[in-house]
C-alpha cells in the first residue's frame, strides 16, 4: 500500500483527522499528546508536511510509532509538559485522550503554554445514544466509548456543554468547534446529536 493511498483510506474513515489537517498550516510544528500508534501524525506528515512529534507512554504504542516513522517521546502526560519550552509548537493536539486524563485542568493549560494553539477532541457523553443507554439503566458503550465501566481508561467523560463551560471558566478562547456523528457534521443540537466533539483553542 503506498502512502497516499493509506492517507485517503484514513481520511475516508477518520473525518476527524481530515478536519484537524484542515485546521493546521502547511509545514507547521505539531505535538500530538497521547499519540497512540502515530496514525494521526503519520497522516498529518503526509498530508500537511507537519513537523511532528508524538508523546506516548505505552511501550507497544511507542514502538508502533517508531515503525511508522514518527518521532516519538516516551513520557507520562500526567506529569505535565515541563520538559517543553513555552510557545515552542504551532499546535498541540490531544485527540480523544482528554477523557482518560486524571490531571485534566493541568494538561489543557499546559497545551496552551507549549503551543500557540491547541486542538482537543473527545467523545461527547451527552450524545443521545449515550443518554438512552443511561435511561435504560446502563453505562453507555459505543463506537466512541468502546469500554465496559469496569475496564475503561476513561476517568473524565464530559459533554459538549461541560467542556464549553470548562473553557469559559478557565479563560480559554474557543476559536472553532465542530461536532461529528460518524463522520457527518452536526450543527443542530450538537450536544444531543453529536458523538465526537472537536475544539480549536487559544488563549483569550
Amino acid at each position, binding site marked *: 500500500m503506498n502512502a497516499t493511498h493509506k492517507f485517503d483510506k484514513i481520511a475516508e474513515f477518520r473525518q476527524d483527522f481530515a478536519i484537524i489537517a484542515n485546521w493546521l498550516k502547511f509545514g507547521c*510544528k505539531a505535538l500530538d499528546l497521547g499519540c497512540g500508534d502515530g496514525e494521526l501524525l503519520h497522516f498529518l506528515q503526509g498530508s500537511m508536511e507537519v*513537523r511532528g*512529534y508524538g508523546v506516548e507512554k505505552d*511501550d507497544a504504542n*511507542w*514502538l508502533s*510509532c*517508531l*515503525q511508522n*516513522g*514518527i*518521532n*516519538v*517521546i*516516551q*513520557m507520562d502526560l500526567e506529569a505535565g509538559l515541563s*520538559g*517543553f*519550552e513555552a510557545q*515552542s509548537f504551532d499546535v498541540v493536539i490531544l485527540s480523544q485522550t482528554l477523557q482518560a486524563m486524571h490531571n485534566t485542568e493541568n494538561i489543557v493549560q499546559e497545551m496552551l503554554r507549549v503551543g500557540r494553539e491547541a486542538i482537543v477532541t473527545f467523545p461527547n457523553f451527552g450524545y443521545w445514544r449515550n443518554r438512552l443507554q443511561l435511561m435504560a439503566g446502563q453505562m453507555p458503550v459505543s463506537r466512541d466509548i468502546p469500554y465496559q465501566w469496569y475496564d475503561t481508561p476513561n476517568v473524565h467523560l464530559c459533554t459538549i456543554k461541560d467542556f464549553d463551560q470548562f473553557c469559559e471558566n478557565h479563560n480559554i478562547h474557543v476559536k472553532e468547534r465542530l461536532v461529528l456523528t460518524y463522520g457527518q457534521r452536526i450543527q443542530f443540537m450538537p450536544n444531543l446529536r453529536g458523538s465526537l466533539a472537536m475544539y480549536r483553542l487559544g488563549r483569550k
Partner: protein
Amino acid sequence: MSETSSVGIVTAQTAHFSEPLKLKSGEVLPAYDLTYETYGTLNADKSNAVLICHALSGNHHVAGKYAETDKYPGWWDNLIGPGRPLDTNRFFVIGLNNLGGCHGSSGPSSTNPATGKPWGADFPVVTVEDWVESQARLADYLGIDQLAAVIGGSLGGMQALQWTMSYPDRVRHALVIASAPNLTAQNMAFNEVARQAIMTDPEFYDGHYYEHGAVPRRGLRIARMLGHITYLSDDAMGAKFGRKLRDGEIKYGFGVEFEMESYLRYQGDKFAGEFDANTYLRMTRALDYFDPALEYGGNLSAALANVKARFLVVSFTSDWRFSPARSREIMKALLDNECSVSYAEVTAAHGHDAFLMPDPHYHNILRNYLQNIRTGGTE
C-alpha cells in the same frame, strides 16, 4: 523471527597514525595507534558503517570471540550479528579501543616512542572531543566519509553526541543510550573516590608503577567495586543478592559473609587483573570534563544548534547514575533545534547496567530504529 547468531570468530587490527593529534588540553600526541575490530562488510558506496563507542571499561572487542574456547564474547555481543538488532548482514560495524585505553590503542601502558619506556603518568589527559577526532581519522583510514550511525551507552553515548556536534555532516544517526549531557556533582564524586583509591595505593608510584614492576591493584579493585554499586539499582542488588549469606551463617568477622561481598570482591579482583589504573584515571576524567554546553553559557540547545543527525535517545527507569532526567535534557535540547529525535524510557530493573542487557523491549527498540536506517543510496 529469523535465526540470529554471533559474528563468530573475529580478529583485532591496529592502525598507526603518524599525523600529530592536537588534544583539547593543548598537548600534542605526535603519533598513535588505534586498535579496532570490524564485523560485516562495507558496502560499495560505503554507506553502511556503524561506529560503536565504548564506555568506561570497554574496548574494541565488541562482538564475537577470538577463539571458540573463549569464555566470553565481546562486551555487546547480544546486540551485534546476523539477524541481531544491529544486523551485520546489513551493517559494517566498527569497534575501537579509545586513546588512553589499555587494550592495544596508545595509552599510558604503551611505549612512549620518545623514551622507549611506558608512558605512565606522562600520557596526556584525553577528552571525548579528542576521541571523536581520533575516531574520525580511523573512519578516514577505512575510507568512510559518512557513518550511517554512531552508537554508544554511558560515556559511549557522550561520544555519539559529540560526533553530531564535531562532524554534523559525517553522521546520519546517533543512538545515545543511558547517557547524559554532562555529569552531575554526585556522579563526578564517585569518579573522584575511584581515583583517590587508585592514587593513594602505595603501588601507584605517581602513575609510573610499570617501571617499578608494581600494579596498584588494591586501588583499582576498590574503584571497580564502587563502580559496580553505582551501575546496579538497589532493587537489582536486592533481587540478585538480598541479604543472602554465602555459608548460611553469620561468623562475626570481616571475611566474605554476604553474597553481595563475594560478588563485589570477585568483580574487583577480575578487573584489577586485566585493566590499567592509569587508563581508569583518564576514562573517569573524560567523563568529568564532557560538558558541551559549557562554551555556550550552559545552554545545551545552543551547543546542539548545528547538528544534522537523527537521534534515538534511550534511558532506563532504574538507572540512577545516568538517570532518565539527564537523557530528557538531551531530548529537550534536540527538540529545541527541531531535530529528528525519538526518546524511549525503558522500564528496567538493572540500573545503569541495563544498557548492556538483552531486554526484549529494549532490543526491539534498537532493532526497529536500526531497520529504518537506509543504506545504499541517499537518505
